[in-house]
Structure formats: structure tokens, C-alpha cells
């Protein structure tokens, strides 16, 4: 590993900077803010998957004592927006009014009420009389583009702000078709060709804190939103558009957030809450119930993937053709970009000269897709890693050796990086760091791979072991921007203000450690505040595994500027040249001696040539260095019940230099268990009319402590030359492994190939019977 030096704060184990408030229960989440006279808001939701509102009578609801406002589509600006919290212009279609005269899924918003109490608001909902004209729904994405299919978006205002192929008349809300090389030549050069269909299912993020927004007007009549969001600046921009008010009138405060995982990258509760405040002039609180979080927030896009791969006897890939049909749900939030990432987060991982990615995102009247940790990589990781296992077995090669032979290495590029980006073309990139070979070695060695593989045993319970390899990115190249400011105080401490949005990830700690490393101080000498659109500089927010890499880069650049200013002041104090002065252990040390940072800070503020030592810096990247991971799952299958249990799960991850190793491991383990429960247990059950039947913790299938298998986590250090102190991202990549690794392990145990999770006892039992 080059460029690795002895760090003082970075890569050292430190408590998280926000920890004390969290363990004492004092940290303030949105719901913990008390505002005098605050009204409670409730949303009336559609019982139909697809219907037009013929009439809506709110007179009785408005007349109910304690009701302050009832809003329907007639009462809000008719401005078309996307609720996708993405950079501007968004690569998601403008296909949503905050309230409309048409509903497009069971749970869609029909009207919203603000009342003095929640009970009154709920009562008022019952008094709203709506007459619907039911329309034929689309409940299967395979039907969306058939001739004569119902048109879900017939509103003339529909538009897409970037030049990409979409057609609402055909329910098409995303398209990608990219060919590299020559497919025909590729497949004809193969010794064997494999082709199968894989299908991932719906999933919900199930952050512990439900979506919630509080809005009020400040004394200057500005609209203030305290909101559980991953994207405060995007909230400000989109709410301004939706309510037709200027951006400058809006302030968004991100308090403590109770988890997001992508579900809070969208504008979910903010516009309706804000509309009620504008209508009443009063503070309003809109919190989704747990049921509403399931039915009416966001989900992982279900995807049907047809994957065809040509391979030679020696394991060389001659062609990969991936055809994807993605179910976007009723609104196209993130549909296109999850679609292109479905290709771009797996196809560059394996060397192959001929690659085609041909994909569609279509509207349906099922639940709304959105950003979800993994962001397409989960979908394609499933297909690609199962097919690798199938191919390796067919050509008689250990899949681990096949992975080692094929995976991209340091110094290599992939034409896929340039061909596939965020809904459009991407950017060429050469891999600057890759520890995947070592990751594979570690999980093989630690799991006893060679000994356990193909050794299921006999009897009722069979054992199996399966592998997957993965990559993600670190920020969106040439789109994302992060910035921060630092100012110095007289005691030698620093205030770091950033738009980077800590939603529980530990990014405040990451920012503090990076700045502390540069400034030669302790992590807790850097006081981090995130984020408030009035006070903190811009950052796109917490998504695309961007914070450590990109926001961290901004922190490093900013701290370097501060260090330069400190050296200048110290140079005057020490009467020597600034270039020889180093910052260490809270001091500026030159050849002749040193001064403490407190002395520097005090002098700059009070004593001589007074000025504020302060700086702003922005970071922007033309690359997105992938973190890599290798997974091994060891499972047991009960062949009489079909029950699959993970016994032990090994992961090894290359995230570059881990800025905070303990938090990095936490990111691995959280993503992993979410992936495991998604593979085995989590699922949506719909009735024939598109209504979700299991919108609750108990019936949806998240894991609790008793479900926890043994988990073995390894970090493989590399040094990413483009990252701050060698760091890459880590948040997402590990959610993508369990779907394929567990499927591959089931095959190893019982010889049945499951290409459609979840691998519930019923599904496994049925597959065993068909054997």
C-alpha cells in the first residue's frame, strides 16, 4: 500500500463526535422539537391503484371544530415536479403534483388536513367525501408497455428536464441501450452460453424514525422546515418549485436523523406540510405512521433481469448481455438512474470485451420506487453473481478462481465507465486502488472455503457455501458537489460547518477527523455542525456513497487553507518563514520554537492584525472510485421445511483507508444484515388490486437480534490516491451480496438454483420438490 503514513486521527479508533447526545437520549430529532401552537397533519390516501377524482367535498371536514385547513388538488399550485432529491436538473421525470385529481397507487395522496390535534385531523379525514372513477391499473411491469395499456401519466405538463428517452404514453420512464464491442462475435467466440432470468423483489428501507417534517413561519415570514431528510438543499429547491415561492424564502434545518438508507433522499412529507403552514400561517407537524412509511414512501425497485453470458473453457468472458425491465411504480423517482446504475455497478467489475446493457424503466400502479442503499447494484449483483456461480460449475472451475481471474485490477479501466453514467453517458475512469484479490483470499481462508465447498453432508439439514463479489462507487462524478467552511476560535478549536448530511452514518465524525488530521489537533477540537441551508455551505446530501469521499475532500481542502492561515500568523509570532512551520499536537512549530493554536487564535481575534481565520472549500470529482467487497455465506437448508438459515457470513471490504474503522465496520454490518433479511425474509404481499397487505414491522420481515447469524467483518486497507487520506466509500456496497451469495450457497447445499428471492421456506420447499 503506497502513500500510507502514520495517521494521528484518521484511521484511529475514536468515539463518534455526536455520541454523548445519542446515548443519553438528548439528541434532538425532528419530533423532539416543540413549537407552540403546532398543528397536526394527516393525509387522506387513495384506496384505488388508479383512479380519477370526479369530485371531492371537504365542506364537512373544514367545518369540524379544531380543523384549520383541508387542502385538495384545487388548493395547491398546479406545478409539476419530481420528488426525487437529486441534483438539478434532475434525471427523474417531472410527473407529480403535490396533490392531483388523479391517483396512481393505493396510498397516493388525495387530501391533507391540519388540525389542533391528531385525533381531530383523523376524524376530519373521515368527513371528506371523494367520488372516484376507477381506471384500469397496471399491476405487472410486463404489461406496462403492451399496446392498449392504460396510460398512467396522461397529464400534459409531464416532462423530463434532461435529454433522455422517455415516453409517458407508453409508460416508459427510463431507457438505456449501450453496446460495447460486437455481441455477435462475442457470443460466437464462446465455448458455452448461459442465459437466465433473475428477479429481485420489492423492499422497504424501514428506517427506525418515520418520515417527519415540522414547518413554521419565522418572524420575517420565511418558511422554516425542520425535516428528517438526507438532502436539505434539494428539499429547499424542490419545495420552492412545488409551492411556487422563492428559494430565498425557505430555510431547511436537518436535525438529528433516525436513519435513511435512501428513503429520505426524496421529498416525501415536506411539500404538504409546508403547504399547510402557508395556508394557516401556523406551525404544522406531518409525521407518517409506520403503515404510511410502508405504503407511501419509497421502495427498492423490483427488476426482472435477463442475463446472457458467453464464456470460454478457461474462464474468459466473451460477451455479457444484460436486459433489464424495472418496475418504477407510479412516479419515476430515481427510476432512470437506478436503471443505469444496475449496469454500471456490476458490468465494469469483470473484464469482457463485448457488453450490452439494454434496459427499460416502466410505470406501474404499484408502490413507488426510489433510492435504496445499493441503488441498482443490488439488482444486478443478484443476476451477475448467480450466473458466475452457474458458469464456474459448468466449466469445472472454482468460482473464487474465476472471480480472481476476471475482476478489474488497479490501473485498469472499463469502457462501461464511459458508456453508462447517471441516466446518460458516464466518465472514463482508471481504477486507482483495488484490494478485491485480497478480499477474496480473506473470505476464502477465513471461511474454510475449499474444505466446505461441495460438501453438503447428508440427512435432513444440508450445509452449503456461496460467494459473491461486489463494487459500488464513491459519489457521482462531475455532478455531485460538497463544500464546507471552517473558522478558528481563540482557544484553538474550530467550527466546521457542512452541508454533508449526517443521518446516522457518522459523517460528522469523519469530517472532524479529516480536519483534525490536517490541523494537527484532536478530533474533538473540531466542532461539526450539519446542516442548515441558511448557515452551512452547499452539499448534495447523503447519497451515492459520496460523503466520506467527496465531503471529506472538501473538509481536507478547507482545513489545508486554514492551516496556511495559521502558519502565516504563527510565522509572524515566531519571526520565521511560514513554509517551515508544521501543525502538530495543537501547536504551530517552527525551527525556533512553537506557539499554541490558542495563542494563534487569540492573537488573530484580539491582539494584532485582527481577522477571522476562516475558509470555505468545495470538492467536485471527475471520478467515482469503487469500493470492492467479497462475500461468503455459509448456510443450512432444512430439506423437509425449506427453511434456510445463515450460519456464518464473512465479508471483506476494500474501502481505501477507513477514516474511522469502527464506524466503517458498522456500515458493513448494517448493510449486510439488511441484505440478509432482504434475501430470506423481507417481502411485500399485494392483493389482486394492488393493495399492500403487510405494512408493518411484524409481517414485513425485518430481522431482530435473535435472527442474527455469526458475522465476520474484515476491512482490507488500500490507499485511494484520489480520496481524502486515501479513503473511498463503504456505505452501500455490502447490501448487494446476500441475494446472490445465499442463493449460491443454497445451490451448494441442495442443488437447486433460486433466481428469484426471497428464499422463503415456501420458495425453497417448492424448488426442492421440483428437483
Amino acid at each position, binding site marked *: 500500500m503506497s502513500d500510507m503514513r502514520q495517521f494521528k486521527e484518521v484511521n484511529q479508533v475514536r468515539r463518534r463526535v455526536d455520541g454523548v447526545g445519542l*446515548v443519553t*437520549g438528548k439528541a434532538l430529532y425532528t419530533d423532539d422539537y416543540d413549537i407552540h401552537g403546532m398543528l397536526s397533519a394527516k393525509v387522506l390516501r387513495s384506496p384505488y391503484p388508479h383512479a380519477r377524482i370526479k369530485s371531492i367535498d371537504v365542506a364537512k371536514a373544514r367545518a369540524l371544530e379544531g380543523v384549520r385547513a383541508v387542502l385538495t388538488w384545487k388548493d395547491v399550485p398546479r406545478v409539476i415536479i419530481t420528488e426525487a432529491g437529486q441534483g438539478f436538473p434532475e434525471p427523474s421525470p417531472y410527473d407529480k403534483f403535490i396533490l392531483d385529481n388523479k391517483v396512481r397507487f393505493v396510498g397516493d395522496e388525495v387530501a391533507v388536513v391540519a388540525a389542533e390535534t391528531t385525533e381531530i385531523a383523523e376524524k376530519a379525514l373521515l368527513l371528506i367525501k371523494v367520488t372516484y372513477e376507477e381506471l384500469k391499473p397496471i399491476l405487472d411491469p410486463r404489461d406496462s408497455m403492451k399496446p392498449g395499456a392504460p396510460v398512467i401519466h396522461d397529464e400534459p405538463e409531464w416532462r423530463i428536464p434532461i435529454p433522455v428517452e422517455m415516453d409517458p404514453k407508453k409508460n416508459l420512464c427510463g431507457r438505456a441501450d449501450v453496446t460495447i464491442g460486437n455481441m455477435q462475435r462475442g457470443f460466437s467466440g464462446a465455448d458455452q452460453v448461459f442465459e437466465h432470468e433473475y428477479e429481485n423483489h420489492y423492499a422497504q428501507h424501514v428506517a427506525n424514525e418515520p418520515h417527519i417534517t415540522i414547518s413554521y413561519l419565522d418572524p420575517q415570514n420565511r418558511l422554516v422546515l425542520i425535516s428528517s431528510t438526507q438532502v436539505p438543499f434539494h428539499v429547499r429547491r424542490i419545495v420552492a418549485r412545488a409551492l411556487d415561492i422563492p428559494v430565498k424564502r425557505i430555510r431547511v434545518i436537518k436535525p438529528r436523523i433516525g436513519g435513511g438508507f435512501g428513503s429520505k433522499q426524496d421529498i416525501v412529507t415536506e411539500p404538504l406540510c409546508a403547504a399547510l403552514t402557508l395556508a394557516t400561517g401556523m406551525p404544522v407537524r406531518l409525521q407518517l405512521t409506520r403503515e404510511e412509511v410502508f405504503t407511501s414512501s419509497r421502495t427498492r425497485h423490483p427488476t426482472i433481469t435477463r442475463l446472457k453470458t458467453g464464456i470460454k473453457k478457461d474462464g474468459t468472458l466473451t460477451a455479457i448481455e444484460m436486459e433489464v425491465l424495472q418496475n418504477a411504480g407510479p412516479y419515476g423517482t430515481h427510476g432512470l438512474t437506478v436503471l443505469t446504475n444496475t449496469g454500471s455497478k456490476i458490468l465494469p467489475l469483470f473484464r469482457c470485451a463485448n457488453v450490452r446493457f439494454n434496459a427499460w424503466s416502466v410505470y406501474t400502479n404499484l408502490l413507488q420506487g426510489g433510492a435504496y442503499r445499493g441503488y441498482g447494484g443490488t439488482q444486478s449483483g443478484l443476476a451477475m453473481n448467480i450466473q458466475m456461480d452457474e458458469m464456474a460449475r459448468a466449466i469445472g472451475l472454482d468460482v473464487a478462481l474465476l472471480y480472481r481471474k476476471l475482476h478489474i485490477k488497479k490501473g485498469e479501466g472499463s469502457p462501461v465507465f464511459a458508456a453508462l453514467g447517471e441516466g446518460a453517458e458516464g466518465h472514463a475512469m482508471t481504477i486507482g486502488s483495488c484490494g478485491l484479490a485480497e478480499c477474496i483470499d480473506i473470505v476464502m481462508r477465513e471461511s474454510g472455503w475449499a474444505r466446505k465447498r461441495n460438501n453438503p453432508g447428508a440427512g435432513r439439514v444440508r450445509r452449503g457455501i456461496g460467494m459473491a463479489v461486489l463494487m459500488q462507487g464513491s459519489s457521482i462524478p462531475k455532478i455531485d458537489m460538497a463544500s464546507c467552511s471552517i473558522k478558528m476560535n481563540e482557544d484553538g478549536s474550530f467550527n466546521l460547518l457542512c452541508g454533508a448530511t449526517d443521518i*446516522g452514518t457518522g459523517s460528522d465524525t469523519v469530517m472532524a477527523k479529516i480536519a483534525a488530521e490536517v490541523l494537527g489537533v484532536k478530533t474533538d477540537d473540531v466542532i461539526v455542525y450539519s446542516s442548515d441551508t441558511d448557515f452551512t455551505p452547499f452539499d448534495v446530501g447523503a447519497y451515492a456513497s459520496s460523503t466520506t469521499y467527496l465531503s471529506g475532500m472538501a473538509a481536507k481542502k478547507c482545513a489545508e487553507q486554514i492551516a496556511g492561515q495559521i502558519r502565516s500568523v504563527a510565522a509572524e509570532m515566531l519571526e520565521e518563514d511560514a513554509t517551515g512551520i508544521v501543525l502538530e499536537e495543537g501547536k504551530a512549530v517552527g525551527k525556533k520554537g512553537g506557539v499554541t493554536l490558542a495563542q494563534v487564535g487569540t492573537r488573530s481575534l484580539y491582539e494584532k492584525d485582527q481577522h477571522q481565520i476562516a475558509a470555505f472549500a468545495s470538492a467536485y470529482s471527475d471520478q467515482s472510485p469503487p469500493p470492492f467487497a467479497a462475500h461468503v455465506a455459509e448456510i443450512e437448508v432444512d430439506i423437509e421445511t425449506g427453511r434456510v438459515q445463515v450460519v456464518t457470513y464473512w465479508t471483506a471490504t476494500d474501502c481505501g483507508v477507513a477514516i474511522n474503522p469502527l*464506524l466503517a465496520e*458498522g456500515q458493513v454490518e*448494517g448493510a449486510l444484515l439488511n441484505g440478509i433479511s432482504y434475501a430470506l425474509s423481507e417481502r411485500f404481499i399485494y392483493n389482486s388490486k394492488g393493495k399492500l397487505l403487510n405494512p*408493518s414491522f411484524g409481517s414485513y420481515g425485518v430481522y*431482530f437480534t*435473535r435472527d442474527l447469524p455469526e458475522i465476520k467483518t474484515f476491512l482490507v486497507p488500500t490507499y485511494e490516491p484520489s480520496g481524502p487520506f486515501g479513503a473511498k466509500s463503504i456505505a452501500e456496497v455490502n447490501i448487494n451480496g446476500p441475494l446472490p451469495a445465499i442463493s449460491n450457497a443454497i445451490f451448494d447445499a441442495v442443488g437447486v438454483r433460486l433466481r428469484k428471492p426471497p428464499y422463503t421456506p415456501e420458495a425453497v420447499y417448492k424448488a426442492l420438490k421440483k428437483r
Partner: protein
Amino acid sequence: MKITLKINGKMRVVEAGPGEILLDVLRREGYKGAKFGCGHGFCGACTVLLDGRPVNSCLLLVGVVEGREITTIEALGSVDKLHPIQEAYLDAGAVQCGYCTPGFILSTKALLDEKPEPTEEEIKQALDGNYCRCTGYVKIIDAVKLAAKKRKKR
């Protein structure tokens, strides 16, 4: 109606409606460490101790707990002096978003009060009513073990 509760060792007389649940009353009285997560007793974000045992305060009518002893996270350590369990959660890296953390810490306290040296199985059993999406529970279980160790040392 007026209801007398013993909260964190102090008798409190609170005003509450007849159908009100304990979680809402506690939060209104300023004990905001207990969180709303689901309202159905699945997630444990609202966990408090009732006579030393963890309960979902979102499921309890406040009238039912009249006169009984309620312990919330606010009774454990303070910002200046953390409780050893709180220290252990921080040192083990068991805290991410923190929304579930007060509930987990209280369940941990109840467990360690009863079984100072729990096995891994006993830990998993005791914390099974508390949901966390961030950590995958691995470091939470480490934290409980660390807390048990710290307690033993004292």
C-alpha cells in the same frame, strides 16, 4: 385526569386523557429519549423500564401504570458522567443513527441487572424486542458484553 407516576425516582402528577398512551405522556413531560417508531410494539424505540422490566411505552395506557416506577434513558448517565452501559455503546461502535439507542440501553440495563454475565444467547433474547436497521446488531451485542465486563471490574 390526574395520574401519579414515579418517573426516574421522583413522584410526578401528570395531566392525561383517559385513552392516552404512556409514550405520549412521557414525551409531553419532557422525557424525549423514548421515541415513536411504529406505535404497535414491534420496534422498541419507545422502550422504558416499568418496575425494572423493559416495556413498549407505545402500547401502555397511562392509567394502567399509575403509581408504578418508570425508568427512562434520562435517569441513566448524564452528559458529564455517562453510565457504564452508555460508555460501552460508544466504545463498541454500537451507535449509528441513535434513534433506537435509548431503548437498547434500557433493555441492556434490565438484562445486566438480572444477569450480570449473560451469554450471547441471553443477550440476543433480551434485546429481541428492539429493532435497529443501522448496525446489524453486531456491535450492539459487543457493547452489552463490554458493559458486562465494565460492571464486573467496578
